[in-house]
């Protein structure tokens, strides 16, 4: 569907995107992950034809980027970062303008599409409001309706949930998941849980390069076993507990934490060979009369990869 080869973009001397190559298949939801300033937005802007690449090629459905730009643009629905809209227009007028520019000339068709979109994005109550009066979340929804106006095959969303409150984030995520069933979606974010929750595939970008590109499951699997285990016990003595835990294996690493409640002890336990220790711990504690309040594997799999791959010195 989308083929990107050695895409590079220089701003004067500064290299924002440095030789990115990737292939995105039809129906995939790809999350573009990276710290601020990693080159996510620049990459998306080149894909949508807003920026011209310094070098490299973009092929979308067999069309080449600079030559067939207009055809490609009609295949893509794009939501730029922080959804810049025309503030002096009403929501309805804005959508009408967009529909006309995107070539929906028939009045009936436009109206039908508005009804569908207002259902999907929840716009029915704000259709006659000026855009300047809308909250950020509502603007984002209008922007999403704009992107989906012609029911495009490819949707590119640049940080669709940034600056929204948790309810709005959940709403936008639901919309992405609903439309993602039939469309190819690329979206950028720096929130890991978001990528984890919505994407089939994640590409991590740092300093203009792709440092990881795999399915969400496989990326998580690679480090999942290295997870840290959180243990909180009641009715136990810290030193005794430590000794008991060391009985499991001599080489595990135990870190005592500040207890959250009075009369409890908390530990963070990890083993050097990434072995999952939960069952061993349970069996050991069962021998005593201590009470397990919490025994959990901290799921920071993606966070760990992310931090490792995007460290300053990499």
């Amino acid at each position: 569907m989308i083929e990107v080869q050695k895409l590079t973009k220089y701003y004067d001397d500064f290299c924002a995107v440095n030789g990115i190559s990737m292939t995105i298949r039809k129906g995939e939801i790809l999350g573009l992950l990276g710290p601020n300033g990693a080159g996510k937005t620049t990459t998306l802007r080149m894909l949508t034809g807003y920026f011209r690449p310094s070098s490299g090629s973009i092929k979308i459905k067999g069309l080449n980027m600079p030559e067939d730009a207009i055809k490609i643009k009609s295949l893509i629905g794009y939501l730029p970062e922080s959804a810049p809209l025309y503030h002096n227009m009403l929501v309805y007028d804005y959508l009408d303008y967009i529909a006309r520019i995107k070539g929906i000339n028939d009045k009936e068709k436009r109206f039908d599409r508005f009804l569908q979109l207002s259902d999907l994005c929840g716009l029915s109550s704000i259709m006659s409001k000026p855009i300047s009066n809308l909250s950020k979340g509502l603007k984002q929804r209008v922007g999403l309706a704009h992107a989906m106006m012609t029911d495009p095959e490819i949707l590119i969303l640049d940080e669709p949930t940034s600056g929204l409150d948790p309810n709005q984030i959940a709403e936008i995520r639901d919309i992405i998941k609903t439309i993602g069933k039939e469309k190819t979606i690329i979206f950028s974010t720096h929130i890991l849980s978001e990528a984890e929750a919505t994407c089939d595939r994640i590409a991590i970008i740092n300093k203009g390069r792709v440092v990881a590109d795999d399915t969400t499951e496989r990326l998580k699997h690679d480090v999942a076993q290295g997870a840290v285990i959180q243990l909180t016990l009641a009715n136990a003595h810290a030193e005794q507990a430590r000794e008991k835990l060391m009985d499991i294996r001599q080489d595990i690493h135990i870190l005592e934490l500040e207890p959250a409640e009075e009369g409890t002890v908390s530990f963070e336990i990890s083993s050097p060979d990434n072995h999952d220790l939960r069952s061993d711990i349970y069996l050991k504690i069962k021998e005593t009369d201590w009470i397990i309040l919490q025994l959990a594997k901290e799921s920071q799999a993606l966070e760990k990869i992310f931090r490792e791959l995007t460290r300053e010195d990499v």
Partner: protein
Amino acid sequence: MKQIKTIAVKEFTDYFISPIAYIVISIFLIVTGWFFFSTFFMYGRADLRDFFGMLPITFSFIIPAITMRLFSEEKNVGSYETLLTMPVSFTDIALGKFFAATLFSASLLLPTLSYPLFISFIGEMDPGPAIGGYIGAVFLAAAYCSLGLFASSLTRNQIIAFIIGCAMCFTLTIIDKLLFFMPTKIISVIQYIGADSHFMNIAKGVIDSRDILYFVSVIFIFIFSTYIVMHEKN
């Protein structure tokens, strides 16, 4: 073609949504009205010569105020990105915006049609120069709009766009009045470049293809330059 119209209609209605249209129209009418009628009865001539005579100078300040927002505002708000990632060509965008500004400038002249109407009541007026004057004024406005459009495409700051636009329009207006500073060899070229004389030719009621060609060339050159700027800046 359809998209040019869509963009033009949107930009044109934008003028009337914001207060800018009403402010610009009032200032234009006050300035031209005052300067025209303050001396009108002294000469006792039933024509619009003085009105058209100062139009190039007035336009070189009024038109950049109309065109300054065309690109600068969009770049500043960020909607430029939205616009450029829709399936429209640079040419469609530039032409759409140009037509909107020209149409608005023409509607600026609409209330002044009452002047010839009023004059024809009190004296014998020759309609030729008046008709020619209005045709010339639309060409002049269109040429200045293309200059202003170009100025606006250069920057995201509307004030800078206005100042650049004024400077360019003003230069084009007065350049043929500075001939005594110029070397004799290029005088005829400079004379041709000045917008004022071409406009005044048409305003005399003589519609000469050379003058029309001049305005069309200016419009073409600056819309093309706008296209180049758009192309180079992305």
